[in-house]
């Protein structure tokens, strides 16, 4: 049984890896974006006289990690699934001897990881190795502070992937649920972007918003793993943050399953 799900992941992953030209274009775009963000942040830090909740070096690393791992965020849906839902191909999905939610979840894992690996590896090489070699030390991604930090960061990154997939699944279920889900799915990514910390690192938001920001689910996507990487959250104190990621993933998976099950009761396949 587990084998079937694993082959779904690996087959989809290999299919999605084919889009190399788009990956190169994405790489250039993200370098450019990273450069803009770093210059803007440096300008702000240049006027700041009091100590800030994050150091500029940490912000720079946060920005590069964000550019490298952008594809992992739940910003899009699986185009093939979307087409299947509108043209009725979904009925084939229903006859498969696999649990529908788990099957789609596997496709989602492939969607969130394939483009990300293509984009993140050159980006990390560039920001971690080439920038310091070229003499742009203050622009470079800093190496993580030791083995423990790296391991905790990777663990939290896996949890972030789980969270991202479980939220993408909510977006997929919305598509099944209502035909105008497309519009809703255009609004949701904006919330994901701002509340995950992609637009501005969350610690830099005003102090009175911090209480809310630390509870909401999207910080688990970006803010938690990146701050562990930069050392802003000490690796050995990261337990509650990783638990936060896991709890929200469980909530989204539970919700997604319930919504999918209830909409499958109502599904009417038109035509044969």
């Amino acid at each position: 049984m587990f084998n079937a799900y694993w082959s779904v992941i690996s087959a989809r992953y290999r299919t999605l890896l084919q889009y190399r030209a788009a990956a190169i274009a994405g790489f250039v775009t993200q370098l450019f974006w990273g450069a803009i963000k770093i210059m803007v942040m440096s300008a702000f830090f240049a006027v700041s006289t009091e100590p800030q909740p994050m150091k500029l070096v940490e912000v720079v690393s946060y920005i590069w990690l964000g550019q490298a791992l952008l594809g992992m965020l739940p910003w899009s849906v699986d185009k093939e699934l979307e087409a299947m839902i509108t043209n009725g191909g979904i009925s084939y999905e229903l006859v498969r001897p696999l649990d529908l939610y788990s099957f789609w979840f596997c496709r989602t894992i492939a969607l969130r990881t394939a483009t990300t690996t293509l984009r993140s590896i050159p980006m990390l090489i560039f920001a971690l190795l080439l920038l310091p070699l070229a003499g742009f030390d203050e622009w470079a991604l800093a190496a993580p502070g030791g083995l423990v930090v790296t391991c905790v960061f990777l663990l939290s990154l896996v949890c972030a992937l789980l969270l991202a997939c479980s939220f993408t699944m909510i977006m997929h279920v919305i598509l099944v649920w209502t035909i105008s889900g497309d519009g809703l799915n255009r609004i949701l990514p904006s919330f994901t972007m701002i509340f995950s910390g992609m637009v501005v690192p969350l610690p830099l938001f005003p102090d009175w918003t911090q209480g809310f920001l630390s509870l909401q689910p999207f910080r688990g996507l970006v803010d938690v793993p990146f701050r562990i990487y930069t050392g802003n959250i000490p690796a050995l104190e990261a337990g509650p943050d990783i638990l936060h990621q896991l709890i929200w993933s469980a909530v989204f998976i539970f919700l997604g399953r319930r919504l999918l099950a209830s909409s499958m009761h109502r599904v009417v396949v038109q035509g044969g």
Partner: protein
Amino acid sequence: MYWRLALSSIKAQMQYKLSFGLSAAGQLAGTAIEILGIWALFTRFGSLPHWSLSEVCLFYGVVNVGFAVADGMATGFDHFGVDYVRTGNFDRLLVRPRGLILQLLAHELAIRRLGRLVQGLIVMVWALTDLGIDLEWPMIVFLIYTIIGGTCLFLGLFVFQAALSFWTVESLEVMNTLTYGGVESSQYPLSIYDDWFRKFFTYVVPLACVAYFPILLLLDKTDPLGSSRLFQLLAPVAGYLFLAAAILAFSRGVRHYTSTGN
């Protein structure tokens, strides 16, 4: 002629009211998070060197209004490679007794871009009021001339992208770096950026000429980079010239074009 085609395009899009409303709302949310980000940074850090929040909002508003109009008009050019060249549909445009540029502009007037436009206008008007700028006629004319300059420049980028698709249909997404990246970067004053970046957006893609320089004149502010008032007054012309150059490149492309056949 353009207005008749544009009107019919708007009517067609209004047929799906809910879908239109949601995608406009999606656009609005997408741009709203940018302004939220700018606000968060200003609350945290107080100010930028030489620049206040309302001044930065003026940059944001002017650039976004200019871009939203261009983006709404240019769908035909944006999809040109995929929808026309690759499919061979371009031949159909060539045999019609109307100008190519007109037909491509009329491909669709994407009113879902309204979200960005409305928001840009709101932010711009708020910034102007907050800064207490007297909006007398010469100022209004200058502002409109600047915004149209911006629209021309972004349209020019889309036309260049379409022109490139005569040679290659691959990887034109790179052009998005210049369009969306351009909008993103010109929301902040040019003086905060590094030298190579400033030069690129002044001389290669003259975005600074339709945002940074004219707005300095509007604010009656001395340029930390030391440009003269006369230069600031004339700078938006670069946007108009950029569009002209793009159209020239496009016509060269048309001559180079051989159909993919049907």
